[in-house]
C-alpha cells in the first residue's frame, strides 16, 4: 500500500468543524464517543487542534462568516488530511442552500474526500464512513 494508506491504517485523530448547523450532526458525531458506539475502540479520537488531526469532519451549511475560517483551517491542517463532509448540509447545503448567507457547499470551498449524507447520519453511518475511509472494510 502507498505511504498515505499506511499512515491512515489505524488510529485516526479527528478534528470537527461545525458550520452553520442545527447541531443534529454535531451531536451524532459526539455520540460516537459515548459508550453505545465508542469510537475510541478503533483508536479514533476527537482532538482539539487541527494540527493534530488526520481527518477533518465538516458539517453544517457554510455561511459567509464561516467560509474564511474553514479555508484557514484547511490551510493550517497538516497534509495529508482527509476531509469528510457530513450530513445533507455538509454535502450539498441541504435545505439551507437557498439561504442568503450560504457560501458553500463544502466541496466548493475545500477538497472533500468523502461524503456521509443523512439528516443527521446515524452514528453507525458516521463510523462506517470514517472506517471505510481508513481502508478498513
Amino acid at each position, binding site marked *: 500500500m502507498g505511504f498515505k494508506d499506511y499512515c491512515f491504517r489505524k488510529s485516526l485523530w479527528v*478534528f*470537527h*468543524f*461545525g458550520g*452553520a*448547523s*442545527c*447541531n*443534529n*450532526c*454535531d*451531536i*451524532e458525531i*459526539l*455520540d460516537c*464517543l*459515548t*459508550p*453505545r458506539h465508542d469510537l475510541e475502540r478503533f483508536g479514533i*479520537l*476527537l*482532538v*482539539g*487542534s*487541527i494540527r493534530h488531526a488526520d481527518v477533518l469532519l465538516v458539517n453544517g*451549511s457554510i*455561511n459567509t*462568516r*464561516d467560509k474564511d*475560517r474553514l479555508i*484557514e*483551517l484547511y490551510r*493550517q491542517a497538516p497534509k495529508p488530511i482527509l476531509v469528510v463532509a457530513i450530513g445533507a448540509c455538509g454535502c450539498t447545503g*441541504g*435545505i*439551507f442552500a*437557498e*439561504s*442568503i*448567507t*450560504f457560501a458553500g457547499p463544502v466541496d466548493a470551498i475545500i477538497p472533500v474526500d468523502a461524503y456521509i449524507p443523512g*439528516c*443527521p447520519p*446515524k452514528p453507525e453511518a458516521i463510523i462506517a464512513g470514517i472506517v471505510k475511509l481508513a481502508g478498513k472494510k
Partner: protein
Amino acid sequence: MSKKTLIPIGPYHPLQEEPELFKLFCDGEIVRDIKWETGYNHRSIEKLSESKTYDQVFFLVERICGICSTSHPFAFANAVEEIAGIEITDRAKYIRSIIGELERLHSHLLWVGLAGHFLGYNTVFMWAWKYREPVLDLFEMITGNRNSYAMFKVGGVRRDIENSKIPVIRKVLSDARKKIDLLAGAVMDDPVIHARTKGVGVLTRQDIIDYAAVGPTARASGVAIDIRKDDPYAAYPLVNWKVITAEGGDVFAKAEVRLLEMYESISIIEQCLDGLEKVREGDITIKVNEIPEGIGAGRAEAPRGEVFHFVVSDGSNSPARHKIRAPSYVNIATFKKSCIGQTIADATISLAAVDPCYCCTERMAAAYDVSSGKRLLNANDLIGLSLKRTEEIRKSGAGHE
C-alpha cells in the same frame, strides 16, 4: 492520560482571530464585562420560510436546532392552526405531547452530560449520554429517525403510534426512571458539585423579569412560567403534572429543575399512553384545505423555554411573514448578570447553565484582559480552569474521592 480527561466538545479553534461566542473581559481572575458575538449560524430561516409551502416549513423549522427540534414545529403548528381555526383530534394531541416530552427527556439528559463534562465529571457525561440512547431508540421506533422526527403537520401528526408499541415505550420509561434516580443521586448529593454550583451564576427574580428569561432558567429563580400550564396546548390540559421551580437561581437550582422535570415528563408520557389506549387508533389528522388570511401566534414549551412563532398569512400557500423566537435568544442575554463579578473558572458552568443551544455551547468563550484587550485564554483553557477548580475543591477535602 490528559487527552482522555479533556474530551473536546466541538470545534475549539485555537486560531488567533477566532471570534468566540462570548468574550470575557477579565481583571485578573474576575470577569468584568462580557461581549457576545454571533452571526456564524445565521441561515435566514425566516426568509426561507416565505418561499416554502406550509407543509414544507415544518421540515425547515425542525432544523433550526437539533435538540429542540420538535418544539419549533409544535409552535408553528399551533400558530397555523390558530389562523385556520381548527382543533386537532385527541389522539394527535396525545402523540404531539408524547414526542414533545420525549424530547425534553433527551435534551435534559444531554445537558446533564455537558454540565458534568464542564465540571470535570466525565463519568456523568458518559452515563447521561448512554441513558439517552434508549430514548433515541424510542424515537427511531416511533418516527423513523433519532433526531428530526417529521411528525407534525397542519391538522395533526403524520404517523400514528400504534397501540402495539405502547408496552415497549412503557418499559423504556420505567428503566429510564431508575437511571435518572442514579444520575440525580450522583449529582445532587455530591458535596464537590455543591461547592462548584451553589451560589454560582446566580440570577435573581428581578434579573429574570428584566431580561424576560424563560424556561428552566426562569423557573430556577422562582418564576413559575411554563407555557404548558399558562397557554395550554395539545394534551397538557388533559393530564396531571406540575411545574417544577426552585429558589436560589444558581447553577445548582437550574440542575435541580431539569432533573426533576425529567420525572414529570415521564409521568406525562405515561398518562398520554393511557389516553392513546382509550381513543380510536389511526384518528390522527383532520383535513385542512387552505389557510385563510389572518394572523396567528403559537408557542410551545421547549426544553429551554418558550418557543414563539408568529405567522402572517395572506391566504396563499406560503407564510407572508414568519417570525421565530427561540428561548435561548432571551436566556443567553442573562449572562451579563450571571457571569460578571465571578471568576473565570466559574464562567463556563454559568454560561452552560442556561443551556444555550448546543451550537452556541461549542464555541463558548474566550478571556481577554480588560485593560489591554489582549486575548489571554481560549475556550479549551477556560474548561481547563474549570476542571482545575474542581480538583482543588476535591483535594481540600470538601468532597469524596
